């Protein structure tokens, strides 16, 4: 592991940008596409996923010396499923409407590869403090990615930001943006943009060398 000397802050920052789970690692695509038709949904989904990430990383790291290797995946899934269930009931208690619009995708956090991935690749080998920071960073990065989609899709598709009209009443909404097709296009466009940035950075490096 090359993260031996890193500080907790680095663990947090890498998830946000350099190892962004969606834009760089291309993980957790299902919720990224499915629930980002509005800003509010994106935020709730981001927070719920971060909560589960932090909790599962915390417990996996806490028990990392106790869980036998053979049953570790099963144990992780059980820990994750527990906290997803907890998150689901909390969301239902806070707002039934939000729960309705996110539907089964809250439960589907269980199979979000990011969470199992972080438990296996990071929390099972690192201290609690680092693991929690890692989870927070990944969660923040995931939320950031969801928001980048949610903002574009809601702005264009509905003319609103978190339900507040932005362009005035006369705006002609681009319905496709809230439809499934729009989700693919917007995510595809973001990836194009990040690839472009990466390519430009590489070119610059070459020039310097």
């Amino acid at each position: 592991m090359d993260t031996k000397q890193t500080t907790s802050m680095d663990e947090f920052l890498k998830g946000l940008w350099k190892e962004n789970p969606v834009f760089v690692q291309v993980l957790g695509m299902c919720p990224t596409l499915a629930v980002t038709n509005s800003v509010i949904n994106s935020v709730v989904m981001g927070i719920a996923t971060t909560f589960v990430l932090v909790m599962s990383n915390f417990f996996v790291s806490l028990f990392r010396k106790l869980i036998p290797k053979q049953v570790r995946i099963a144990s992780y899934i059980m820990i994750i499923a527990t906290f997803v269930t907890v998150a689901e009931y909390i969301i239902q208690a806070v707002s039934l409407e939000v729960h309705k619009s996110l539907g089964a995708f809250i439960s589907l956090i269980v199979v979000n590869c990011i969470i199992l991935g972080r438990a296996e690749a990071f929390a099972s080998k690192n201290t609690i403090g680092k693991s929690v920071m890692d989870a927070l960073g990944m969660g923040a990065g995931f939320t950031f990615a969801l928001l980048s989609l949610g903002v574009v899709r809601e702005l264009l598709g509905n003319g609103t930001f978190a339900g507040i009209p932005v362009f005035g009443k006369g705006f002609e909404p681009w319905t496709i943006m809230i439809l499934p097709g729009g989700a693919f296009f917007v995510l595809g466009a973001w990836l194009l943009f990040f690839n472009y940035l990466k390519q430009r950075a590489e070119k610059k490096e070459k020039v310097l060398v």
Partner: protein
Amino acid sequence: MKRQKPRLLLTTSPFIKSREDTAFMMWQVNYALLPVVLASIYFFGISAILIMLVSIIGVVVPEWMYSKRKGTPVNTVRDGSALVTALLFALTLPPGIPLWMAFVGALVAVLLGKLIFGGLGYNPFNPALVGRAFLQAAFPVAMTTWSPYGNLSNFFEIRGANFAIPFLKAKVDAVTMATPLAQLKFDHQLTRLSDLLLGSTAGSLGETPAILILLAGVYLALRKVINWRIPVGIFLSVYLTALVLHWLHPERVPDPVFHLFAGGLMLGAVFMATDPVTSPITQRGVWIFSAGIGFLVVIIRVYGGLPEGVMYAILLMNALTPLINQVAQPPIYGMRRKEAREKKRNAS
């Protein structure tokens, strides 16, 4: 497969070595489109001209910039392929569409439908239809508001909401008219066949004069620019599917001939399904392809929620084309099928 004089249409998708042939073909298509374009100008006047101009700008400018940047020897603007995309795209639009939407759609058609895949010869879907499908999903109301057809006497009348301010809702409360397929679906009214043939119905720019498109198709088929099997296969398949459904529920499905001449079927079958890049390579594949289009068109028209399904049918069969190519691979002469497939794989 018999060895024949190489036919342009049947070459596989990378066209690089036959650029000049592509140019010849594309200009032929443009010539064949001319009567259709003129007819749409006759029926929809200045609006038709404006929509086509905007579409041409929207398609040609990105194409030009792209081929300039890439340094392609013969650029796709000069060989006429960009013009074909632009005109076909424009012909699928309703005459009253705001011009800014037409421009957005043209950009989507060329960027998402073509350039992102590497340009001409690589696009898996028909670019004009990608643009139209995008508009249909983005602005469903504007894309299903049809202005009545006219003639030269109201040539200068602006149809619908052509001049709506970009990004804003159209305020014009224009006169509208239902298309024959919508009349059938929602009001159970049948349009006369003669009206369909002569184009005196509401519809998109190129949806109207069925007989002209048919003639253009015959010309292109004779010049061997398009594969005649595609339109013929589509017509047969539409006719047979509609015949069966007509027999099953006569009250819901009209005479199969109506389905042949209504809506965008003619335009789609002659000009769009025949795109050599997005249709199968082998003759057997072509028959499967066209049968699928015809079947889907009638199924969507009769059982689906939308009155028209040509665009979706062609896009769906475009998507299936690579699979059809796999299934309908002909054995190379003197070889058994399996060997042939292996050989091809090794070669590529």
